[in-house]
């Protein structure tokens, strides 16, 4: 069964460093998402991406964040200058359209980011 994959599974970085989180969405999906989940808190939407551009982003997704689909298969989230509060589990998701226009969304296993 096709699945969303993410690398790395864990990332430890120093505050102020740049990190790139990588995702390979399910191949025939058209929408891609990044979410994050701070330990003990709920899953929060960061950004959605369609047709090679951002379609929606949350207040969390400020100028230090960017997304890219560099080669038609990978979908990356870059954090330019990490802060302590960026420590979280980052989930990539992709979705396909169901009959009738609804959507079903599949999540990757996540990257656990720890900023020291």
């Amino acid at each position: 069964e096709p699945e969303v994959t993410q690398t790395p599974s864990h990332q430890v970085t120093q505050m102020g460093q740049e990190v790139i989180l990588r995702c390979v969405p399910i191949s025939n999906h058209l929408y891609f998402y990044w979410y994050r989940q701070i330990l003990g808190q709920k899953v929060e939407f960061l950004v959605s991406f369609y047709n090679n551009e951002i379609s929606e982003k949350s207040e969390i997704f400020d100028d230090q964040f960017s997304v890219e689909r560099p080669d038609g298969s990978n979908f990356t989230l870059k954090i330019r200058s990490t802060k302590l509060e960026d420590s979280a589990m980052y989930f990539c998701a992709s979705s396909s359209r169901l009959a009738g226009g609804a959507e079903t969304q599949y999540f990757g296993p996540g990257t656990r980011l720890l900023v020291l």
Partner: protein
Amino acid sequence: TQLLEQSPQFLSIQEGENLTVYCNSSSVFSSLQWYRQEPGEGPVLLVTVVTGGEVKKLKRLTFQFGDARKDSSLHITAAQPGDTGLYLCAGAIAYGQNFVFGPGTRLSVLP
């Protein structure tokens, strides 16, 4: 801003018991999904519901979407320890809109 609420927040039951958890909002959703999440892992999709009043069964799990597509319930029959986990509901107002997640119900099934 769509807000999804889930109840109860925590639930601890004995193996073999039945339970229902709820997901409520004031917003109308085009689709709503239920996930189960284990600690340190990503949410795993259980079901997607799209039609008001729809009922879907997945073995011992029964999912219902409210007639007005603002709420949903998950009923588990004869719960087992393997059902332990965080149950999340997430809704999207339209295709391509981000999914909004509820805070989850943390279920513990004791043997």
